[in-house]
Structures are given as C-alpha cells and as structure tokens.
C-alpha cells in the first residue's frame, strides 16, 4: 500500500488502540493485530459489493487500466461469469493498438461461446463501442463488455479517448483493472483515472501469486469505490468476488 495511506492508517489504529481498554483474554500483540485487521476491513468497505445491472438493458461495462494489468482476460472472465448467470453478453474489442489484441479477445470469446464485436480495419474505438452497443440492443444482448487498450493515466490523448467513449455510450459501470503486484504507484493511477473519467469500482488481478495486494487498500482509500473482483489465475474461471476480510488477512500476511 502507499506509504502515505499507511501513515494515515497507523494513526487510526493508534487512536483505536488507545481508545480501547486492554482485554484480559488477549495479549496486547494479539489485540493490536485484531484492531489492525478490523481497521483494514473497514477501510476496504466492510462487505462485498458486486456488479449492478442497468435498469434497462443492455448493461454496459467498460474496463480500463494501465498496460498489461489484465483487462482483456478480465473481460473474458466477466463474460463467462455473466453467461453462467443466464445473461447474453457481448464482448467488444475496442483495443485497436496492441498487436493481435483483437485476436486475443476473439479467442477468449470462442472459448466461452460469447460473441466478440469488432469493426474490421477500424482505428476508432468510439465508433466501435457505439456501434457495438447499438448492435447489442438489436440482438438482445443484455450486457456489453468494452475491453479498452491499456494506457497511461498521464497520457492526455488516451485518457481523452476514454472520456469520449464514456460520453458516447454511457457505461453503467467503469471498472479499473489493476495488477495486484502494483506498488506505490497504485494511488497515482487510481486517483487519476477516477478524477479524469470516474470509476465505479476496480478489479485487482494476479492475486494467485504471493503479492500481498496492498494496492487494494490504496485504491479503495483514494477512490472510495469498491474493489469488486479479484483475478486469481489465467483461466477464464479464475475470477472471485472481492472479500474485504480475506483481503485484510492477506495484506497482514
């Protein structure tokens, strides 16, 4: 977690610890860990919050984030999850930059029998997303998942592109996909994405390794938006809802 976030956190813990008397059954150390654990859970949003659906279909989900964070894979995972719940998702290949990005999403779509929308030869993600949503409405696809290109939060043109996509299709949820191993930079990234385009939640990926996942705390405390899912593997079934208490235990190691 970001060390400024940590300092603030430590201050809260100190306050709680001083405010509480000593419980007879626990050692001060155990009690301290308990307080820290509780504080972490509170900080991370006490209970799991999941995807909300739009009042009228299609529900549009837009996945955004830095390069390589796991957006394309997460798009496939969400599509699989929603299909399993009886929805008819449409995956949209809005990354026109990365070599073979469209093929990558198409292969994932094939794996889970979910259609993937593309416009052959188009270099305009705004058009791709707009036409995709229109197509979904006509075809009765009730969830549209927009897989966007990885980009830097400090790249004005690319952040602008996201704003334009958002204005064009008005996604119900904008989800920030963050690599679970991200260090101090998590705060800058989450804050900037939230300030510039607004996010409704995030997905923390690659937590099947030994990364503590402190980025979860940073993201949550700076955006005040919930972490909705975690990625726990490369396969499309490796997506779990985010549980604050489990994350707290993990961060505390």
């Amino acid at each position, binding site marked *: 977690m970001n060390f400024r976030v940590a300092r603030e956190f430590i201050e809260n813990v100190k306050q709680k610890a001083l405010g509480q008397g000593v419980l007879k059954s626990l050692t001060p150390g155990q009690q301290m860990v308990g307080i820290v654990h509780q504080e972490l859970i509170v900080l991370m949003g006490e209970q799991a919050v999941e995807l909300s659906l739009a009042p009228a279909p299609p529900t549009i989900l837009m996945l955004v984030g830095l390069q*390589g964070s796991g957006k394309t894979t997460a798009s496939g995972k969400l599509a699989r999850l929603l299909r399993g719940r009886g929805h008819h998702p449409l995956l949209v290949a809005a990354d026109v930059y*990365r070599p073979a990005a469209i093929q990558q999403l198409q292969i994932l779509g094939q794996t889970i029998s979910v259609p993937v929308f593309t416009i052959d030869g188009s270099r305009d993600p705004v058009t791709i997303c707009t036409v995709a949503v229109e197509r979904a409405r006509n075809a009765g696809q009730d969830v549209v998942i927009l897989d966007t290109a990885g980009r830097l939060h*400090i790249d004005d043109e690319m952040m602008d592109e996201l704003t334009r996509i958002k204005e064009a299709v008005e996604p119900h949820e904008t989800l920030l996909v963050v690599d679970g191993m991200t*260090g101090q930079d*998590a705060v800058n990234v989450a804050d900037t994405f939230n300030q510039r385009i607004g996010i409704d939640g995030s997905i923390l990926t*690659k937590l099947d390794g030994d990364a503590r996942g402190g980025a979860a705390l940073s993201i949550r405390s700076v955006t005040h938006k919930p972490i909705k899912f975690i990625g726990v593997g490369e396969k499309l079934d490796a997506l779990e809802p985010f549980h604050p208490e489990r994350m707290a235990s993990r961060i505390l190691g």
Partner: protein
Amino acid sequence: IRRYDKIDDDLLDEIEAILLQTDVGVDTTTKIIEGLRARTVEERTKDPSAIYELLRHEMVQILTTHSSPPPSLDQHRPHVIMVVGVNGTGKTTTIGKMADRYRRDGKKVLVAAADTFRAAAIDQLAVWATRAEVDLIRHQPGADPAAVAFDALQAAVARNIDVLIIDTAGRLHTKTNLMEELKKIKRILGKQIPGVPHETLIVLDATTGQNAISQATLFNQALDGLTGIVLTKLDGTAKGGIVLAISDRLSIPVRMIGVGETIDDLQDFDARSFVEALFT
C-alpha cells in the same frame, strides 16, 4: 549543534519518504539512510545539496557495484537470449524492440515464439517480427515451448544467425510447474549447445512494488542465474526503485529500460540518470 542535527534529521526524513514512495522498500531505504547518516557525520556535511549528492552516489554504487558489462556478441554465434518474467510485464514488446535494434546494428536476428499458451501470443510476436524485419520461428498454439526453443536454436545455427531471442509465456514465480517448464527450456537449450542461453533477462514492470524482489529471487533460483533485468513502463509515473533492492540483494544488473509502446522505446540503462529520475 542541536540545530544542525534537526536540519539533518528533517532532511533524512524527506529523503526516506522519497525513497519509500519510489518503491525502494523499507530494508534498502534503511540501509541507504544509515549509510548516508554515517557519511554526513564523517564528512561533516551540512549542505542539503551535498547530502543529496552523497545519496545519489551511494545509490549509483548499489546499482553498479556487481554489474559486469553486457556480454559481447562476437564471442559465439548465435548469441542466445531467453526472456522471462511474470504476466504482462512487457516481454513480447521488449523482444520486438530488441530485435529491431540488433537488426539495425547489422546483426542477423531470429525470434522464437515459445509462448504457446496465451491467446494470440504467437500472433502478437509475429507482428513485432514483421515490424522489426526479422524472421520468426513458430509452432502451433499448444505446442511444447521447449520444442519451439530447440527448433529455433537449430534454425539459428543453420541460418548463421547472430542473435536469437526467445519469448516465453508470462508466469507467476510461485507456480512450480510453470517454473519447471522454464527450467526444461533452458536445459534443452544447454544440451543442444553448451552455454546457451548466454543471457537470461527478466522483464520487470516499473509499477510493481515489493513483489519484484520475490519475482527476481525465484526466477534467479530456478534458472540458476538471471544475467540482467529489463525494467519496463518507466514512461509512466512509477519510478521502479525496487531495482535498488534487487541489485543490492541479488546483484543482477539492469541492462535496459522500456519507455513506451513503440519499437524505438528501448534505452540502455544508465544508473546515474535513473537515480536522478527517482528524485523528480
């Protein structure tokens, strides 16, 4: 005297904050701060800019002490480079950039698509090979990565290739079976031609925090010695300070840095400018 101490302490606090913010990590930061404290006492340095200069010098030392110069290409042919690392760090893109560089330097380059697992990984490298104007060895998706590597090395010898670069699938360092797969690739190569691969580079994402230490440690162990690090995505806001901890503990030098997504966005590592960038 008291006043001097106070200034010194505030300055050290400021420096500590900066180091922690750039992912240098607690242990290495403490070591640097203590080293700095000792030197400022012995040199009686008061001036903040002099202290900062001592600090930068110390950090450059950490980054360069154990690093030998990169291997020269005319020792053997083909010169084989194996590229490894966890998922999404920029291996495939970096290989595209490296291939182009060697080709422009007049070398005959071959790249091998040994990521036979991830969706469209081979297609992705194929695009980069075309951009870099180099040949590509590929099998079908799902093929044995060791077989691709073997095939590529044979082709490199047959075609008088100067540099062979092998792309591998991203994998988490904690996945034993995947690390075994990587060991197998290395073993197969070494059996074919002793000493191959001549370089084993780990690609680290500058946005990665302390986990990079675990990554470097385990890849280093599994592959019996990483020869270098490529630190990518330094064009973002992350500073990649974690390489200080890695240099300090494992003595693996940073060879190159990735500063963008286009073919020219690869630079040789310069310890001094890297350290200066940590403070901006």
